[in-house]
């Protein structure tokens, strides 16, 4: 955990530097993001890297796509995240490769949304957000199963990014609370309360859509 925290701290730093470059850059960003020679891996390490991390590309892309909201940004984030991962792979001691990679993907996406693009609303976090009363939800809640894929997608898209990410990590990626705490760098208690709030908001958003009201 300490390793991950240190690594992600550096990741954010690196990310800021790239952002400044990317503001002036023309796509594709790939040419800028190529690792320097000292960051790269010898063939055996590269083989280990690919074997360990490429299987999680699907999860990396899904998370990046939900966080950045466009195909192009998601692809760039995944590529940048993998190049950062190369740089820090020496510090990866084995263990949960998926959570390790998703931590980097999340931080990389973060630098994209800090630039003010693709982010969607952010909220004053947990302490200040009123809890949606579970009891306030009516029996029509059970009709949620009737929601179309499109409606669910829109309701999830409409969530502030801090809530969206915990729902994606839990419901789409199937991460445990412990893994979610690692990826989001939050205490488990905060992960749980954020997830509860996110679900309550999502239910509410879906109900509004099902009633035909617009959110």
């Amino acid at each position, binding site marked *: 955990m300490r390793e991950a925290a240190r690594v992600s701290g550096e990741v954010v730093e690196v990310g800021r530097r790239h952002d400044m470059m990317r503001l002036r850059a023309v796509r594709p960003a790939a040419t800028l993001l190529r690792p320097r020679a000292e960051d790269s891996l010898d063939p055996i390490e590269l083989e280990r890297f690919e074997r360990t991390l490429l299987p999680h590309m699907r999860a990396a892309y899904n998370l990046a796509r939900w966080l950045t909201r466009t195909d192009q940004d998601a692809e760039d984030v995944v*590529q940048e995240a993998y190049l950062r991962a190369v740089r820090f792979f020496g510090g990866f001691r084995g263990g949960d490769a998926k959570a390790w990679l998703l931590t980097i993907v999340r931080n990389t996406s973060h630098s994209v949304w800090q630039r003010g693009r693709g982010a969607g609303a952010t909220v004053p976090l947990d302490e200040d957000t009123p809890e949606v009363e579970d009891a306030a939800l009516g029996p029509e809640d059970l009709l949620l199963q009737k929601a179309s894929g499109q409606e*669910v997608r829109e309701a999830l898209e409409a969530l502030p990014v801090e809530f969206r990410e915990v729902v994606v990590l839990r419901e789409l990626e199937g991460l445990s609370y412990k893994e979610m705490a690692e990826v989001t760098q939050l205490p488990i208690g905060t992960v749980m309360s954020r997830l509860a709030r996110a679900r309550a908001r999502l239910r509410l958003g879906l109900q509004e859509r099902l009633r035909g009201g617009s959110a």
Partner: protein
Amino acid sequence: MSCGEPAARLLEAYLDGELDLVRSLEVERHLEECEPCSAALSRHRALRSALRDASLYYEPPKRLEDRLRTELGKGSKAAKSGGLARWRWQAVAASLPVIAALAWALVAIPRGPSNDELVSQEVVSAHVRSLMAQHLTDVASSDRHTVKPWFNGKLDFSPEVKDLAGDGYPLVGGRLDYIGGRGVAALVYQREKHPINVFVWPEPDARAAADGESSLRGYNVIRWRRSGMRYSAVSDLNPPELRELARDLQR
């Protein structure tokens, strides 16, 4: 367990398969007698199945993996400053697993039936390991709606989970395991004092292994294939009862 804010948290943790067996049972007992809590659980489940059915998962475009491999490869070539000789040795070393795999394939393929034996041995070892390490379940629940979703994201397939409590084989939980070089689902059932591991993994090729039974080191193994999945049930339970479980699972 009383109702209120902490109970609501507990309920979500239960739904997420994050509670240990004792806590899960407490919650299940409470749910039986508490109308509001069991209604809340149904609401959580409704939301979850809405999320699961909506095909919300964004699949990466095909070109992304090529793009990544190209970029990663570029970095690697730039690093090749250690001299050709060292690189050659590394290439030889890197190819050893491939050679070993090929050799294994050549030896293993002509002897078709022995593959079944190998798998049975692995399956029995996994069963024994799960009992020795007292690590029978990663997710302890008798609720198949908790056990099945728990595997999401942990495996590249979704195993069918049945609760056979009505037939005398209650579901105890699930676990990840590793057999034949891949991650598999282990579903844990109980018959009186006998734990039963049912290992499940995809097997598209119907000819890859034969259905059958064997007995190894005092454990009984029953193998079958159904809907593209390979099943292996292992237990110290007597063969007739184990066969009954296998039949119930194939219903």
